[in-house]
């Protein structure tokens, strides 16, 4: 298989098909419409289920129904439309139904516009549905990684029976770079003990979130959180770039983190001992490792394309009194290398002045 130059949205759709996608439900919204458009040709041609739903609410509830089959199910949407899906996400967590939700972020709040943004970190990680639940959130920084992570999202969602989100920046969805779409390297799971496939020669099964027994409801939620703990132990993932001897640390996620590598590289050439810490899983957040790293940092600089959302998780992870600064802007063109270097140099100057 050779490399091809394709848009991020198409790459994600292709990688999902390679992972064994069986059913897709969606409703068009920029900047992710290419995913549904591409699949609208490819899936019917392969006898797979493709539905362009009447609304985003329809799409995600169809996904809930399809997920009871244990097959690989995907929904894709963007920011303000993902807001509409929050109720169903809460239900899916309680029902323990696995599917992948691809969220290609655009600018908010409200309708916002189609400019790129990372403004939905909070919505993705803390959720907008009711009750105690967590969504596993994977965050790619490049297109080859987006292809890997969408396949991993299917694996995690099926293994732990939980909805999993691929949180993609609009920039990644729309840009193109060479990718090689490969078969999924993640193992298949056996779903036969819980799927609703007809109760012939076995007792009937039920999947619902309604639970009138106080005792049972408590048990259920506690068991969900045992599962989240297990996910945290097994699936937490991150990347470190030039952190070995770093005294200053940038924290950043998604495609913004990719830009900050150029900042690290240039500041290193000027003798600044700086590195990058990039979570690949936003939930579970790699708090333990960031905490360890924080112990030897003079200063931590969080850089995001929002007003400081991951910043809260960074603060919760840091184990000493490290000073934490934030550089960011809410929407539009990604921060340029020169802007970030200027801001970081000022922070470093102040940091030395205070020693």
């Amino acid at each position, binding site marked *: 298989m050779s*490399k*091809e*130059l394709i848009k991020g949205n198409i790459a994600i759709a292709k990688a999902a098909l390679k992972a064994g996608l069986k059913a897709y439900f969606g409703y068009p919204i920029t900047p992710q419409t290419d995913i549904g458009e591409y699949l609208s040709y490819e899936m019917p041609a392969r006898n797979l289920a493709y539905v362009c739903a009447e609304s985003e609410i329809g799409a995600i509830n169809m996904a809930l129904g399809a997920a009871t089959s244990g097959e690989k199910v995907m929904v894709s949407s963007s920011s303000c439309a993902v807001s509409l899906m929050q109720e169903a996400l809460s239900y899916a967590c309680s029902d323990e139904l696995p599917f992948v939700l691809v969220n290609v972020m655009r600018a908010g709040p409200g309708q916002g516009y189609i400019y790129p943004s990372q403004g939905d970190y909070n919505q993705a990680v803390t959720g907008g549905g009711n009750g105690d639940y967590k969504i596993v959130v994977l965050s790619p920084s490049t297109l080859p990684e987006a292809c890997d992570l969408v396949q991993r999202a299917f694996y995690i969602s099926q293994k732990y029976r939980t909805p999993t989100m691929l949180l993609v920046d609009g*920039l990644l969805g*729309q*840009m*193109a*770079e*060479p990718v090689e779409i490969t078969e999924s390297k993640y193992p298949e799971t056996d779903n036969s003990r819980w799927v609703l496939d007809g109760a012939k020669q076995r007792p009937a099964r039920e999947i619902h979130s309604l639970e009138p027994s106080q005792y049972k409801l408590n048990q259920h939620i506690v068991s969900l959180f045992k599962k989240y703990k297990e996910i945290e132990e097994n699936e937490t993932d991150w990347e470190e770039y030039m952190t070995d001897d770093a005294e200053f640390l940038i924290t950043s996620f998604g*495609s913004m983190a*990719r*830009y*900050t*590598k*150029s900042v690290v*590289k240039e500041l290193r050439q000027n003798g600044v001992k700086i590195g990058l810490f990039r979570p690949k899983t936003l939930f579970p957040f790699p708090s333990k490792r960031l905490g360890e790293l924080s112990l030897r940092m003079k200063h931590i600089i969080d850089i995001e394309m929002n007003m400081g959302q991951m910043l809260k998780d960074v603060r919760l992870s840091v184990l000493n009194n490290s000073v934490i600064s934030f550089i960011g802007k809410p929407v539009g*063109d*990604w921060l*340029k*290398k*020169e802007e970030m270097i200027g801001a970081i140099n000022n922070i470093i100057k102040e940091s030395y002045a205070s020693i």
Partner: protein
Amino acid sequence: MNKNFIISGSGGQGVISIGGILANIFMLNDFFVSFCSCYGAEMRGGAVNCEINMSDEELFCIENEQVDYVVALNQTSFDKFISRVRENGTIIVNSSLAKINKARDDIKYIFAPLTEMAGKLGNIKMTNSVALGVLASLLGNFNTDNVKKAYENVLKNKNELIKKNIDAYLLGYNYIQEG
């Protein structure tokens, strides 16, 4: 090596097509490459531009304030993107649709009547491929098979169209080579 490019024009001029072909040429020559496109409000007639970055190392920044090469296929894009050319960088301007004007003295200019040249080949729609040929000749010698493969990757099975566009590409390429 690290080079970046902006290709700009109006919707319908094939800006995104040649941007994709250029990016494919780099990919087929084993470089790291990124390709970002930006559309105006309307497809045909609106402003369109794309940015291509190539490097022999992994690419981190995929959008740059200053670029090494700008291709401007009309007056509006010439006016808009001249400020984005890096010092000592080059701007290629379609002089069929833009006035010759050297407003900056720290960059190199190539004014070529790209639309007229494409017209001589029989179709002004191939202005974009003439421009790509001009740009390619400044970058060195690309393997012709890779150029053909890049056209096939973008234009798929339209064999007749690919052949005509490669003729247009070569016309642009030789325009510079022959001075």
